[in-house]
């Protein structure tokens, strides 16, 4: 009975997740297709003489000559790839799906002459047959089948996935570290200040967590760079590298015990680079999580079963650890799971401040350099993780608390 309900719930939720993902893909793709810039604007901005054929070739290379809906379905599922071939007959070979060279007209707008695209130049239509017949056109498989397309700018003409793969380890490294630290610091802080409610300790923790959550991550990051990287170097104290994940060349760190030479790419080098970004992310998370744990702990400590446990004469330590904490952590588990999508989205600012070569930085660079396939890939990964995390946290809720039923 319970498993049947579970299966029904899962089917419905997966279906809903697919709809949410599709809608957000559609929305982001539409938005990005209206965004200015792109591979052509870069080429024209460096003043390379391009004739109409060059432009048509480049547009074909990046599929910019296709209509947006066609581009979207090709991006999503890799279709249409050409005319249908049924029973020895080509169906829809002449269907126009794009335009190689759009016609331009000059319009006067607000007293200025503006060049606008209007219709297609005669004989330059792209048909479904062209899609299949043109050998230079890339065969796409679609995001659903693991093909995220080609990067326009950051790694020109290389698969987006290569780029994502190269950045992924850095982000995961940073996130694992800061999540672990946040749990290790945040939970004890929250529990202790709940147990000692209204004590000086509680007061300090609550106030500090206010400071932590009011402190913008970018400002805190810059302050750390200022102090530990720039000033410490000036004062000849052991200083930290201001950014990046690995040093380009060996560097020396002045300490009280003489200069330490740190080899680029060594474990010490990597660890030293991680300190500041991890601290910034951890501080921000600890502020939120400790407050959350405190709140849920206070709630649990008021419950009857805690009073019963105390009345039975159990040690206070056992009451706190076994009876109260376990129940207080139920909602916290979902919060932690829910922070997983932040692996990609949430660290944009921190990674930018510290020049950390992770996914957030990549997304920001992709937007700045109009590399929309890369931006699109990251958006979809984040959206996917978000819906999965929501589902997992819903399921976890029922696992840790049997009273909650899925519906």
């Amino acid at each position: 009975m319970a498993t049947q309900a579970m299966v029904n719930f899962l089917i419905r939720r997966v279906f809903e997740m697919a709809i949410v993902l599709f809608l957000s893909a559609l929305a982001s793709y539409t938005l990005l297709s209206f965004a200015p810039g792109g591979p052509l604007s870069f080429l024209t901005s460096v003043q390379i003489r391009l004739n109409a054929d060059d432009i048509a070739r480049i547009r074909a290379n990046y599929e910019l000559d296709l209509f947006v809906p066609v581009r979207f379905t090709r991006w999503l599922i890799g279709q249409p790839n050409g005319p249908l071939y049924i029973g020895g007959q080509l169906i829809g070979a002449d269907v126009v799906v794009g335009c190689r060279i759009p016609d331009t007209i000059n319009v006067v707008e607000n007293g200025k002459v503006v060049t606008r695209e209007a219709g297609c130049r005669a004989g330059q239509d792209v048909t479904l047959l062209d899609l299949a017949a043109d050998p230079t056109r890339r065969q796409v498989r679609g995001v659903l089948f693991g093909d995220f397309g080609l990067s326009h700018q950051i790694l020109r003409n290389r698969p987006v996935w290569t780029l994502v793969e190269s950045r992924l380890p850095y982000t995961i490294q940073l996130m694992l570290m800061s999540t672990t630290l946040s749990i290790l610091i945040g939970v004890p802080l929250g529990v202790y200040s709940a147990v000692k409610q209204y004590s000086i300790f509680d007061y300090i923790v609550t106030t500090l967590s206010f400071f932590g959550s009011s402190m913008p991550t970018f400002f805190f990051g810059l302050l750390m760079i200022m102090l530990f990287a720039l000033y410490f170097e000036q004062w000849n104290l052991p200083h930290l590298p201001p950014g990046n994940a690995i040093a380009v060349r060996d560097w020396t760190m002045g300490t009280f015990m003489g200069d330490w030479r740190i080899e680029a790419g060594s474990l010490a080098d990597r660890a030293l680079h991680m300190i500041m970004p991890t601290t910034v992310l951890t501080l921000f998370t600890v502020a939120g999580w400790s407050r959350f744990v405190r709140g849920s702990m206070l709630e649990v400590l008021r419950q009857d079963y805690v009073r019963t446990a105390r009345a039975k004469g159990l040690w206070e330590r056992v009451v706190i650890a076994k009876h109260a904490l376990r129940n207080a952590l139920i909602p916290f588990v979902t919060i932690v799971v829910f922070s997983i999508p932040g692996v990609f989205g949430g660290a944009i600012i921190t990674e930018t401040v510290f020049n950390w070569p992770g996914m957030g930085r990549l997304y920001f660079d992709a937007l700045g350099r109009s590399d929309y396939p890369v931006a699109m890939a990251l958006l979809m990964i984040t959206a996917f993780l978000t819906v999965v995390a929501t589902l997992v946290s819903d399921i976890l809720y029922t696992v840790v608390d049997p009273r909650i039923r899925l519906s």
Partner: protein
Amino acid sequence: MATTALTPTPRPIDVLNAEAMPEEVSQGKVILQRFLRHKLAVIALIVLATISVIVLLAPYIAPFKPTELRVGNYFLPPGSVADDGRVHWLGTDNIGRDYLSRLIYAGRISLTVAILAQIGSSLLGIVIGSISGYVGTWVDPLVMRFVEFMLSIPQLPLLLIISSIIIQYREALQLPAPLANFISWLLIIPTTETTQVVAIIGIFIAFGWMGDSRLMRGMVLSLKEQTYTEAARALGSSHWRIIFRHMIPNAMAPMIVSASLGLSGFIIAEAALSFLGLGIQDPTPTWGNMLSIAQSSMLQIPWLPLIAGTPIFICSLAFNFVGDGVRDALDPRLKM
């Protein structure tokens, strides 16, 4: 009152000399007293009031105009004296503009953006939430599904895309002249710069109303079951009258609390967008883009980020404390 009822011969009450009865304390006074008990909130409110006054009187207080620059006066140290005897109290920035003056004018813009964005998203949330909760039927599930959808897509990345598109098209977009003139007068910026400010506020509203609408819907759903709503309906009040005269006023307390806590988020969000270069652009000063410039010149002047970022932190902290105080005062049940 009880005494007058018991006395056999009723005498006129001596209003002037009557002692105040304890239950005569008004609701407003109770709320004020509860707020004043929160010391940090009171301090924060004073800080915010001071900042607001400084920012409102910007043209009279700031020694320089925000875009006034002197070629060659790059990165002057604090306390340097300009040719005409005016003092650069906090020095100058990378192209010779007075830092203190820019901070003051930037505050005017940053605070206005945050406040307008919060008011806008609260109003939108109230309207959508109350309609959704009140109408019910097919509207409510539809609206709530949309809210869930908006909350389940990653916000920051989308916000960045939209604002980067708007920034690149900002020349083409045009505001209606009265609005542009009003914003330009309010923020003391050229009318050509008003589009981006309004666009940023618009984006924040578009992404900020969901929480408030959920809260409002919940309130309306519970208020719908109250007897006074039933009474109003029995008396023949129209739906709009019930919504605007009964529902919204009764749901105000949590909405005000949510709005005052949300302000800090908008301060940080605006600063973050501008810091990333996707918010309000440079000649117009905001705390965020000043911090971004400070970052790029950190090698020359390491302490510059400290000056540009402190107001962001102070305002965000103060709004958080005031919000906490307002919550304690208006709705103590909400306290964690």
